[in-house]
């Protein structure tokens, strides 16, 4: 009898193991059913709204129902459910839009699933229009809370028209350029300045002064050319930053008080992938955003110096340029993490996924951010005419691409305003052939957001 009982124990073990598996299966199905349905053809998707309740995505939209190009300003950010674009809000959060619950099944008519984003469609549209025929991208967010207010990228297209015309799309139509790396130009000097403050300290840095004659022969024997061919003369850091003087920054990098390993450390803390070929990403509500990368090999080397000035192999996404501005504007050295989704509602209109403001680790010291903030605000006074009415901290940048054939204009900055704490980054491609200026775009954007 003992032996029989023992073998029956084996039976009960097998049966209970199976029951445990079944319980796991039921839990798994419960949890993932919405995800499964989002992959089927019969999925009923809800709407995406902006912060004022305007619709940004409707799976059943046609050009007639909303008017032509109604969604064009967010076309490559919000995207659609057709699967052509993978790095968009809808593609990465499709199960949140699903009008489905396991107990109710598919709800075709009155499903309340939706995503409420922090975008401001009105301002976004204004910014999009202000680009005119030019291309580029613009992004702005609230540096206190992290809500992304404006995020647009040109060229874009009308998702309601579908992809029939895909062969004639210009390159970059299907991606939001905000999320992808671009040559930062002189806006990189903000990073170098932050590093310099952290490495040398305030007093030492302000005591340094270098001379610019238009062209500087560096210690490696290469020429560093300044955009002002007559030279800026002898300047301190404040003046050099305002002049955006390349020879000054080259000499700063060469200085014995700025060892390269410390620069690399500061850069890495800020989130650069230094001397790393692998593409790295961070995540904003499921949307992948490229991490900044640069190559720094030797202080006296041409490429390294240009890397710190903003040319060479440095690539930074506008999103990340903007995020650093939040650390400067807040004087904390911590980036406010941006988000697009404020909250979602499920099929029964229950609110979930409330966004909460979160901050990064300290990416630079609060002291250095205070100093850089002051320098940028000082620089902002030069823009009092073009961007009037705002107490603005700003850095411009001109990035040469395609071996100097084209020049992109960049503006990064923030405004000092308790009611509208906005940090922004604007990229205007091929500025010499453009009928607008990046300052105008910033002005339009701020006017639309602060009206």
């Amino acid at each position, binding site marked *: 009898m003992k032996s029989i009982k023992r073998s029956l124990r084996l039976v009960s073990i*097998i049966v209970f193991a199976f029951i445990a598996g079944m319980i796991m299966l039921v839990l798994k199905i419960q949890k993932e059913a919405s995800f499964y349905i989002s992959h089927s053809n019969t999925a009923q998707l809800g709407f995406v709204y902006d912060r004022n309740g305007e619709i940004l995505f409707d799976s059943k939209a046609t050009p007639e129902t909303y008017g032509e190009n109604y969604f064009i300003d967010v076309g490559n950010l919000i995207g659609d459910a057709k699967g052509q674009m993978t790095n968009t809000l809808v593609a990465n959060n499709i199960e949140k839009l699903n009008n489905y619950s396991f107990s109710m099944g598919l709800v075709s008519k009155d499903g309340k699933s939706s995503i409420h984003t922090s975008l401001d469609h009105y301002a976004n549209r204004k910014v999009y229009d202000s680009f005119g025929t030019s291309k580029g991208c613009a992004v702005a967010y609230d540096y206190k809370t992290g809500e992304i207010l404006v995020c647009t990228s040109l060229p874009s297209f009308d998702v309601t028209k579908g992809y029939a015309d895909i062969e004639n799309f210009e390159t970059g139509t299907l991606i939001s350029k905000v999320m992808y790396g671009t040559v930062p130009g002189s806006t990189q000097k903000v990073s170098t300045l932050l590093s310099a403050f952290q490495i040398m300290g305030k007093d030492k840095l302000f005591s340094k002064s270098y001379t610019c004659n238009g062209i500087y022969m560096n210690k490696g024997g290469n020429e560093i050319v300044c955009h002002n061919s007559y030279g800026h003369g002898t300047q301190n850091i404040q003046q050099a930053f305002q002049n955006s003087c390349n020879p000054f920054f080259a000499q700063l990098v060469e200085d014995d008080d700025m060892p390269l390993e410390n620069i690399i450390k500061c850069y890495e803390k800020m989130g650069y992938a230094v001397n790393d070929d692998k593409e790295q990403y961070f995540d904003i509500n499921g949307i992948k955003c490229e991490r900044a990368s640069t190559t720094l090999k030797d202080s006296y080397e041409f490429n390294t110096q240009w890397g710190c000035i903003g040319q060479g192999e440095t690539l930074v996404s506008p999103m990340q340029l903007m995020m650093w501005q939040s650390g400067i504007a807040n004087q904390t050295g911590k980036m406010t993490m941006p988000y697009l989704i404020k909250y979602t509602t499920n099929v029964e209109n229950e609110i979930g996924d409330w966004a909460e403001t979160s901050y990064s680790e300290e990416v630079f010291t609060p002291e250095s951010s205070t100093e850089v903030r002051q320098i940028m605000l000082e620089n902002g006074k030069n823009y009092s005419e073009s961007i009037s009415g705002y107490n603005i901290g700003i850095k411009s940048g001109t990035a040469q691409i395609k071996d100097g054939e084209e020049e992109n204009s960049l503006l990064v900055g923030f405004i000092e305003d308790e009611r509208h704490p906005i940090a922004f980054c604007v990229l205007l491609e091929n500025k010499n052939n453009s009928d607008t200026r990046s300052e105008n775009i910033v002005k339009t954007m701020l006017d639309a957001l602060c009206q």
Partner: protein
Amino acid sequence: METTTGKVKYVFSAIFVLISHLAMLTNMFYNGNCDPSNMNKFVILAITVIGLDILYFIAMLFFKQSTYTIDFMLIFILNISLIFQSSFGGISLSVKHLVTCIASLISCRLGFILCRNHKWIQAKKKAFYIATGIIMLCILTLTGSRSMWIDLGFFTIQPSEFLKPAFILVCTTYILEQQNKISVWKFNIVPENLICTGFIILICGLQWWCRDLGSLPTFVAIYLCGLCARLCYPKAKLSKKMIITGIASLAVLAITAIILAPPYVKSRLFVDIWNDTSGDGYQQSQALIAIANGGWFGKGAGNGDLHNIFAYETDLVFASICEEWGLFFAIMVVCAILIMLASPLVNPPRSYFHATLATGVCSAFVVQMALNIFGSCNMIPFTGVTVPFISQGGSSMVTCGFMMGMLIAGQSPVFKNPTNNKKKKVKSK
């Protein structure tokens, strides 16, 4: 059945089986795809199900058994499965499944008659070695190296299914046999255990050669249960160590098997179905979408869409049921099968032979169900095995019926000596 209480129980159980089938048919009538145009199909199905029930209840009266529980559970599950199979993608009686159900019931009787006298079958053990060998030879010669079916023209046979009950019988043992040890190099070895191990190695090799790796876990599970029954019995104090070493060696074996596996197996093992919904992940992703579509209570019989997918009635049968009848219902049916398997726990067999038989049958059933259900739901790699009694497939139904017969044999055993043909008589003092 000799007593009046036995008769009452018999009628009572029969009524409950009938009620549950009627309830399912009612559900089908109101929720299912039952418009007037295919009303006659529904009526045919209903008559068939109820008729089969009643015929079976009458037929069972001719078999003298101590307990009829598993028999009732069997007809209960078989008719549920007939209703399921007849409802996929529109209600119409699945004649093929009806025939296999009846074949299954008959083979269940055969299994019962074969196994009920353990003394007789113990003495005939060599016959099972031969039978297993013949089936393996059939697989080797008739199926060819890349297929697992024998095509007989009007229907196909999957011989590896028949190998299962044969191998369960090979793996059974009894105590006297385990005492028969021979000494080889200071080790006491039971020759029967060696034969058993030899068989599993041969079967593994054969299945590998046939590319029928789906049923391999079933055989391994049967063997492991047999091994447990052998090792844990005479050396109970070593059993824990033995079990741990056994599990460890099995894990090592599994890992090496995965490493050495041919590419087509590897691609099956590690497939992200949602990245490839039109290729390798098509079946599974459609199955999961169907489950999600069904929800708790399903779309109603005959309203599903999964019947457009290949193997909806065999490999993906769990998802098909979930879609049309709901997850709740599917779980209930799986529970019913488990209850049937667990009946030896309530009414234990009286001989070690029947106990090992019950463990073998139970492990074979549970492993098959687990492979199918968890596989189609993407919890483990997807293999083409069937859910016992629920999936369509003649070979599978017949062998499952046979295995159930073995389980019934353990519940209603006969104690007779093989040489002694005298009827049991009341002993005088």
